[in-house]
């Protein structure tokens, strides 16, 4: 069951690397939140009750519902529905994405051959999704896509931190803090303000300060 969920998580990343529709981004972010929730639930044996309740709330309410809802609200106000200006053509996106996954699994199998205590599938998918999220942030041009890329980065980091949840619940809670931090910031302050100041939110407009 766990492996199945992990592979599903990886598949959402493949879809994300290819699509440019915002709606699809948001849906996938929600689906990832749901998968993370299921992963937390399926790990019930190794976690104590308070952690389970806290993490379920965080994943189900925060990641799977609240963040997609807020993103949809932003999207409704925005005149554009897709990110048109990726720096590289889609075909190359597929190639790069494939490479990232190969690299992720290579790192995972290499490190698990040295350390028997890590789970290669968990680790490989986490690494690959972190790299994919960074790839999305670097290649896409719109600010909204950057924000979504960051949400995906957070989801993948959360996935990585789940692999050590039983030993160090403290670290997972820190990750939750990261979520709240960015939600307050990005939504409360900037998307709203930047949208009213700059009409069409591409980073091309955010390049007045340069040398």
């Amino acid at each position, binding site marked *: 069951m766990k492996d199945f969920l992990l592979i599903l998580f990886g598949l959402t990343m493949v879809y994300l690397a290819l699509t440019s529709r915002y709606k699809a981004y948001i849906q996938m972010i929600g689906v990832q939140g749901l998968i993370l929730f299921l992963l937390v639930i399926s790990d019930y044996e190794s976690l104590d009750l308070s952690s389970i309740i806290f993490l379920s709330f965080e994943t189900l309410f925060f990641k799977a519902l609240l963040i997609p809802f807020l993103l949809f609200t932003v999207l409704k106000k925005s005149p554009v529905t897709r990110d048109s200006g990726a720096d590289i053509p889609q075909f190359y996106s597929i190639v790069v994405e494939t490479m990232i996954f190969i690299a992720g699994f290579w790192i995972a199998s290499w490190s698990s051959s040295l*350390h028997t205590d890590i789970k290669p599938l968990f680790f490989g998918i986490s690494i690959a999704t972190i790299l994919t999220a960074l790839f999305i942030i670097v290649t896409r041009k719109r600010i909204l896509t950057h924000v979504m890329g*960051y949400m995906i980065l957070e989801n993948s980091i959360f996935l*990585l931190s789940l692999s050590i949840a039983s*030993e*160090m619940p403290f670290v997972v809670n*820190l990750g939750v803090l*990261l979520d709240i931090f960015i939600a307050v910031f990005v939504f409360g302050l900037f998307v709203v303000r930047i949208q009213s100041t700059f009409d069409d939110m591409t980073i091309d407009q955010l390049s007045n300060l340069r*040398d």
Partner: protein
Amino acid sequence: MTIMLILLFPLFLAILNIVFKSGRLSKLTLLLHPVVLLTGLTYIYSGYDHRQLEYFAVDSTNILFLFLLGAIYLPVSFASMVFFKKENIKEKEVVFYDLMMILFVFAMTGAILSTHLGMFWVFIELTTLASAPLIYFEKRKGSLEATWKYVFICSVSIALAFIGIIFFTLAGKNINSLFFADLVSKADELSPFWLKFAFPFILAGFGTKAGLAPMHAWLPDAHSEAPAPVSALLSGMLLNSAFLGIMRVDNVMTAAGLDSYSKPLLGLSGFLSIFVCAVYILKVKNYKRMLAYSSIENMGIIAIGFSLGKGGIFAAMLHLAGHSFAKTAFFLTSGNIVVLYGTKLIENVKGILVKNPKVGWTWIVSFLMITAIPPSPLFVSEFMIVFELINEEKYFQAVIFFLCVTIIIFGMGKVVIKLCSGEPSEHSTGEDITFIDILPQVVLIIILIIAGINMPDFFYALIQGVKI
């Protein structure tokens, strides 16, 4: 419990400001905070209070950073008053500014005091949260752009640092603790494999906040768009606080016998920083951005000094302290120039020496201090670093160091002379700068010169005490 006082007093002041919303009271709290911070530190340093908290403690390393924070914060508070007066800021905004300033310093105090990697990370995250509204304070299009870049780049970096912490946890599965002291004392139980994985992430994460290249992109924008006192605090103290995290983690790496892996990475980042500065300083069009690039350079020099191991630590810490003072003075003076001319563009400003000799001379002396011209203490530190490079037979690095630093002095000197000489340009706000307005930076420069000529024992002991 003096530590608790130092840590929690700003929160008390913040609550006062939130409740009363009075401009006068908030100004008073902004001046009171550094005074209490410095008094508390002196009390601890004199040995009256040895009690520590579990997650927060004063040790021989972070006491230097704390004193620096207090010493920079006090003049910055004064300069903020000047800023309010000159820019005619509404009372509501004054309260907000003071509140965020106090919280920003609270976050830095917490980060410096942290004895735990996770706690340090939380407070560094908090510094972004508290300082972003200050960078956006003037609410122009440019400041919005700068704030967005700052928040976004720092958020990604903080996420990367978090990945580093996860790997650290994996490295210390047997120890199950992220206290720096535990990590150092049980370093031989840490898994070198995961430590090697963790360090680049931590370096990239905290290095971004410390302004090290190639993660420095936010720095020139944020420093140039923020009000001058905020830029001074960002440059003078935020970069140091983040660097302390790198130092602590590097200390763990050294204890685990991995300094041959971590130190070169840090050194590389340092050399990249001075290189980036040397490239950009020649084509910079905004004098506040020039100062920001100089911060990147100086953080690079500190990183290089630190990467040289035992021989370079004293020099690195001396440079760190000297840079904080000199750069704060320099940024505050740049604020005076903005008040006089109403522009940050180099091409629109000239003739400061004629228009206002006091500001002109402060500007020139600040430049001499930051570029390590004697009697600046930075001369001593840079000399020691080059000496150590040659001592370790790193001739190539020494040449690169010399070359970059010379280009930077040339680039900055050109701009400083251009701004000061000639007849005053037509750009003028009609405002004047009196001696009171430049008092904070004059005091900082006098302290620097004294430290450069004959370093007081107290100052020497603080720097010598950094044992990492």
